């Protein structure tokens, strides 16, 4: 990993052109060990102070970028992203390569490396990988991604899938063969092109049946990576120690420089950041993998060159932030266009924290996605264009004078953002009704078909950096409200999506989806706002701190303490 990344380059941190998409590595790339890092010291304790504990550590339940990234410290998957100079490349992790497909993408075969072992020294076998995938069918594992159940059973959704197979309780899953200890063969009813990426997800981690402690596994999983969990006090702390049975030769991406990792939870991030930036106490060895630099401290840190050094900025994976429009309520594309022109991107970003939040977006998908191409269908200045908006409103068949905007009321800046929108919409004579809402209830209340809300802000990402989980998972008219929350419905798009689903070749599929994106965006179903970026911080002694290009936060697995 590269030290520091594009540190502190606030305004230009996330220049779209610099984004790099993940390429597939070869079997050679998949061989260990990872190249040694210059300046890294062996030993010491890296301290990670996060505001909250991890909701889940069970690999089959983890479903969030930073948790994925951090779990790499103790968990290994079939494949994983190797980051060299900030460029991500998918390589084999437990497997010798990123997977071999046959049968037009209906069968995928993985071979496990030799010498891979659990923290108690016993080897990791294909059975363990299979058991891990089987767990994703079981009740209680709805929290994780649903791709394995859906793909392996050829079902529309997980609910359908678990009817066919209900998890390890139901015995053996026929779709996965383990001819020997080192071979796994996955059989899919439909062609699947993205299996190598899915194999990198946490839910593809092996689990050993005799160590599966049920709910207990969620707080204390069994390690296969360079570190193992010695203690986990919920909401207080998590301590990792070197795993003696991890062999560097087998691992192309991880190191084992530090002796220990100590996580603490519950401390106010503002205090942590102050300690880190000023090097007080343990501050120099400390960082937070989860939190961004608190806005309170950002301006000063950006001004002071010494502190600026300690900022770690980068794009937040493939995340974008958009203004969503409920297409079933705002049916007239002219009105949606007017919204597009009215939206005050500049002011909205200023309220949320300024340029460090990311660059203005013009496309639906993030530049981090394989095959991304820049386009700008309805160009508009950053402060919006009231005149153009009025023109479109005049052209609209249905007159609109009131719109409703729903938002999560857990952060005060959301209230202020709502005020910004109110002011901007008022300029075109639209009264914007703002509706603060409980965070937990937001999805439930806003996405319901009959919910009376027209607009809301949303951050989105793909599950892995190909476009295959973007349009197909959100823009098909037959999807439920939870997936297609804006109720986008275009028969042409539906048809094209169904055609693309049959493509087994990853490259071709990606290109087709990227092309379809323009068709979708002509309808202005959403207003693109930002390609999200993050700015985090690290202690002066902490090396290897860079925002992971896929997971979008500081990669814990790359951290070490610098040589004095």
């Amino acid at each position, binding site marked *: 990993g590269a030290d520091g990344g594009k540190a502190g380059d606030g305004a230009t941190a996330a220049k779209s052109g610099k984004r790099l998409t993940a390429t597939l590595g070869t079997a050679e790339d998949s061989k260990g060990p990872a190249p040694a890092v210059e300046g890294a010291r062996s030993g010491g304790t890296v301290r990670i102070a996060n505001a909250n504990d991890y909701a889940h550590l069970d690999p089959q339940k983890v479903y969030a970028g930073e948790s994925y990234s951090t779990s790499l410290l103790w968990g290994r998957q079939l494949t994983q992203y190797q980051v060299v100079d900030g460029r991500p490349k998918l390589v084999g992790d437990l497997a010798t390569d990123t997977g071999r497909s046959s049968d037009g993408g209906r069968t995928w075969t993985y071979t496990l490396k030799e010498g891979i072992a659990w923290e108690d020294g016993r080897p990791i076998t294909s059975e363990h990988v299979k058991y891990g995938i089987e767990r994703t069918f079981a009740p209680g*594992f709805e929290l994780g991604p649903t791709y394995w159940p859906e793909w392996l059973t050829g079902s529309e959704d997980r609910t359908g899938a678990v009817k066919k197979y209900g998890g390890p309780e139901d015995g053996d899953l026929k779709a996965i063969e383990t001819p020997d200890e080192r071979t796994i063969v996955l059989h899919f009813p439909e062609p699947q092109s993205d299996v190598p990426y899915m194999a990198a997800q946490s839910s593809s981690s092996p689990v050993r049946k005799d160590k599966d402690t*049920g709910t207990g596994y969620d707080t204390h999983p069994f390690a296969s990576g360079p570190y193992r969990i010695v203690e986990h006090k919920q909401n207080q702390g998590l301590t990792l120690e070197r795993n003696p049975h991890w062999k560097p030769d087998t691992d192309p991406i991880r190191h084992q420089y530090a002796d220990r990792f100590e996580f603490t939870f519950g401390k106010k991030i503002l205090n942590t950041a102050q300690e880190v930036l000023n090097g007080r106490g343990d501050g120099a060895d400390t960082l937070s993998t989860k939190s961004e630099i608190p806005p309170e401290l950002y301006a000063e840190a950006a001004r002071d060159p010494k502190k600026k050094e300690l900022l770690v900025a980068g794009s937040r994976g493939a995340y974008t932030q958009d203004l969503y429009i409920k297409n079933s309520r705002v049916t007239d594309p002219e009105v949606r266009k007017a919204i597009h022109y009215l939206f005050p991107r500049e002011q909205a970003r200023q309220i949320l924290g300024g340029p460090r939040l990311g660059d203005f977006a013009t496309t639906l998908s993030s530049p981090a996605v394989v095959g991304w191409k820049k386009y700008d269908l309805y160009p508009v200045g950053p402060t919006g264009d009231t005149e153009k908006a009025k023109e479109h409103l005049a052209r609209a068949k249905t007159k609109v004078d009131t719109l409703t905007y729903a938002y999560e009321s857990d952060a005060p800046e959301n209230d202020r953002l709502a005020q910004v929108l109110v002011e901007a919409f008022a300029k075109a004579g639209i009264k914007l009704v703002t509706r603060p809402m409980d965070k937990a209830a937001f999805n439930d209340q806003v996405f319901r078909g009959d919910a009376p809300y027209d607009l809301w802000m949303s951050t989105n990402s793909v599950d892995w950096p190909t476009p295959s989980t973007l349009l197909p998972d959100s823009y098909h008219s037959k999807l439920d409200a939870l997936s297609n929350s804006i109720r986008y419905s275009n028969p042409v798009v539906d048809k094209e999506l169904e055609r693309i689903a049959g493509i087994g070749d990853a490259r071709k599929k990606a290109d087709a989806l990227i092309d379809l994106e323009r068709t979708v965006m002509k309808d202005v179903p959403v207003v693109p706002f930002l390609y999200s970026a993050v700015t985090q911080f690290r202690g002066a002694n902490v090396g290897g701190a860079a925002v992971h290009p896929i997971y979008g936060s500081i990669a814990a697995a790359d951290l070490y303490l610098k040589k004095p």
Partner: protein
Amino acid sequence: MTGYILRRALQAAAVLLAISAAAFGLFYAMPSDPALIACGPKCDTARLEAVRHGMGLDRPLADQYLDYLRGLVAGRTISDVDGTPIPCSAPCLGYSYTLHQPVLDAIGDRLPVTLSLAGGALAVIAVLGTGAGFAAALRRGKATDRLLSGFTLVGASVQIYFLGYALQYLLVYATGLLPLPGYAPLSDGPGAWAAGLLLPWLVLGFVNAAVFTRLTRSQTLETLHEGYVRTARGKGLTARRTHLGYTARGAAAPLVQLLGLEAGALFGGAFITETVFGLGGVGKLAVDSVVQNDLPTVVGTVLLAAFSVVLFVALADLVVAWLDPRVRLA
């Protein structure tokens, strides 16, 4: 005396029971759905129903409350989102699906912070508050009195969050005179422990001591006119002995009662102070759980706060009874 304590305990139990019922009713009757939180964002309707059933939320409120009470007394088994049973031994305050731990554990984890904060602040309040009030009363009308009265008026009027931030800015950020506020367990050494809590103690202490000082002052002034204080002087006692032996004793009862209330409130969680200084105590837990709609934790913290108030008020009454023999036998 035992009869009195028993009666007090019964009363307190009744009050707590009522509060628990009220809290339960109020919070569980709220529109937000605990099942929704437990189930997570990607939860479809069928799944939600299952979770709701698993958590027992589809049962009548009264039944749920009875279960809750049973758990408090005898412990019970709670079902996790996926139906896995989680044993929860008495006193069981329920299970937080947000924090993924029993509410009692969540509170227990944060209690040391709250105890440290409240204990220290209470010491500041008691010592500073009574001392200043007593001094002001004995020198009433003089410069000391006016100065102290001015101070206490400001103290009684200033907002904890304003003062907290202002002092943090001045003493920590701008000048570095004090360490950053934070909690280090006592096991890290008393120095680290006290250093991190110094500022919160001072702020909380100052603001609350102000009202205490005012009460002490007026109470002392009142007692000074009591006949028995005059008798004591009439015996030929020195002013010091009179004030320590008689005036202070006579003024003590309402002060003890206020201190009891103060302690009850503080040990129940200093919501704002903990928020201002980013201390992860019970108060912060309570505020966070309200914001996140973590109902079992909300009810748990409400009960703890109420318990704390009821307990300390009762304790204060006992101390008053012990201080004043007239009450003792009543």
